[in-house]
């Protein structure tokens, strides 16, 4: 729990339009992206957003498609809020916050169609690629949502998977010497806005999260919305909501540029 003094400090600064770490209301923290940090993963990225640190790893395997989508690959997103990352996180299965985060990121990835799932089908109804995105939070200083989303996108953009071919008797054969890119269709970006009193802030740090009334997380693809999640114990007015979406759209453009820069995507 945040102290009263710290709370007042945040509120007083905000009243004057400034933030505890010196940022403007709509400023992101410094972002560092390091791709390929995990040799055993097919794709990986470590993202630092200020002091928040998250790693996403992509693992792939051959699986059976779901009966209702026999010609589509499978995308699974999982997030672990590890006790290493915060004194408030406890060991055990993902809690509601970790599950919500994974599901919001999952919807963003899925609806942005970052992956062309149809191209991840090998034999319709029989064999498709299963793409696992595992998010590992290592240090939580606020806005794990956007850091995790960014790490997931960067890991997918830079992943390389073995070439799958069919043997004569229709068995799947993986050639691990050939590494192919995933079929990427676009670069989404996820932006979280916090509401504190009557102010809207981009990329809240942990202390800001603790005093925030509500959050709006929005994922954009090609300047369009593809996932939204309002979070937090208080409400947003319609005007605030619309303002959040407009700010988020602007910052998403910024994040797409950072993502492409950090992953080298689009340069080859």
């Amino acid at each position, binding site marked *: 729990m945040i102290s009263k003094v710290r709370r007042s400090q945040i509120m007083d600064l905000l009243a004057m339009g400034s933030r505890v770490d010196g940022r403007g209301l709509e400023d992101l923290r410094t972002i560092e992206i390091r791709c390929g940090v995990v040799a055993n993963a097919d794709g990986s990225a470590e993202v630092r957003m200020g002091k928040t640190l998250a790693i996403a790893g992509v693992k792939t395997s051959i699986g059976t498609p779901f009966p209702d989508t026999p010609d589509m690959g499978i995308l699974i997103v999982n997030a672990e809020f590890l006790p290493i990352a915060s004194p408030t996180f406890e060991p055990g299965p993902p809690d509601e916050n970790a599950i919500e985060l994974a599901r919001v990121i999952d919807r963003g990835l899925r609806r942005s169609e970052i992956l062309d799932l149809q191209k991840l089908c090998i034999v319709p109804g029989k064999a498709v690629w299963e793409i696992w995105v595992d998010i590992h939070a290592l240090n939580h200083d606020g806005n794990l949502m956007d850091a995790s989303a960014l790490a997931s996108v960067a890991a997918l953009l830079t992943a390389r998977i073995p070439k799958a071919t069919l043997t004569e008797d229709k068995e799947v054969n993986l050639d691990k010497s050939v590494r192919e890119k995933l079929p990427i269709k676009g670069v989404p970006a996820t932006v979280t806005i916090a509401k504190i009193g009557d102010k809207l802030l981009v990329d809240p740090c942990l202390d800001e999260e603790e005093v925030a009334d509500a959050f709006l997380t929005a994922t954009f693809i090609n300047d369009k919305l593809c996932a939204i999640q309002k979070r*937090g114990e208080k409400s947003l007015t319609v005007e605030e909501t*619309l303002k959040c979406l407009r700010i988020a759209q602007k910052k998403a453009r910024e994040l797409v540029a950072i993502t492409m820069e950090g992953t080298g995507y689009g340069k080859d």
Partner: protein
Amino acid sequence: MKDKEATLILPDGRRLDGRRPGEIRDIKIKVGILENADGSAYVEQGNTKIYAAVYGPREVHPRHLALPNKAIIRCRYHMAPFSVEERKSPAPSRREIELSKVIREALTPAIFVEQFPFTTIDVFVEVINADGSTRCASIIAASLALASAGIPMRDLVAACSVGKINGVLVLDVTDVEDKYGEVDMPFAMMPGKGEITLFQLDGVLTLEEAEEAIKMASKACMEIYEKEKSALKAKYIEARKAVEEVV
């Protein structure tokens, strides 16, 4: 997703169940049907059928969860194994855990939690049959259960989803419209306050479409709000009659 060309809007502009895009389904509401609970409601919205019950304010177990300055709100959204097409394991799925959280957060802004420090208000939602928009119907039922439990509230919460099918924005999506449509946007607000308490989007919308969808949803919430108030009033009258008969 695989079959986006599914026809969900007929040539006459009507949806598969005969509704116009801006129409919500019939809603049946019963307040106070579960005797053990402090408050309860049953909501039937088309084929979506929900029971909600409220226990509390009551003591918190385990005690260390209690807060000195306000009640905690706990919420469990749960689907009966038989409520969906394929039998569902009764253990809470990741989806149920997320929905429990967003429903709780949709209700909390409406509750004067400060009036009940050290207590919990427990909200239980059981989906008996699911045909789309279950989280919105759950919010309606839970909001009425809270009110009928006598919990002091800033406002009732009303909820309605917006979908996009064959390119058209529609209200109160059914299961088939969710599955084969392009968008599901669950939405809840305190209509008397004009404040949004739940807002999710799963699907692609331009900013302009999102704005339009919010307008539609707000209007639908106002309509549902009236139904909620009527159901509570009916319950109140019924209760008064019962008292008068006794007296």
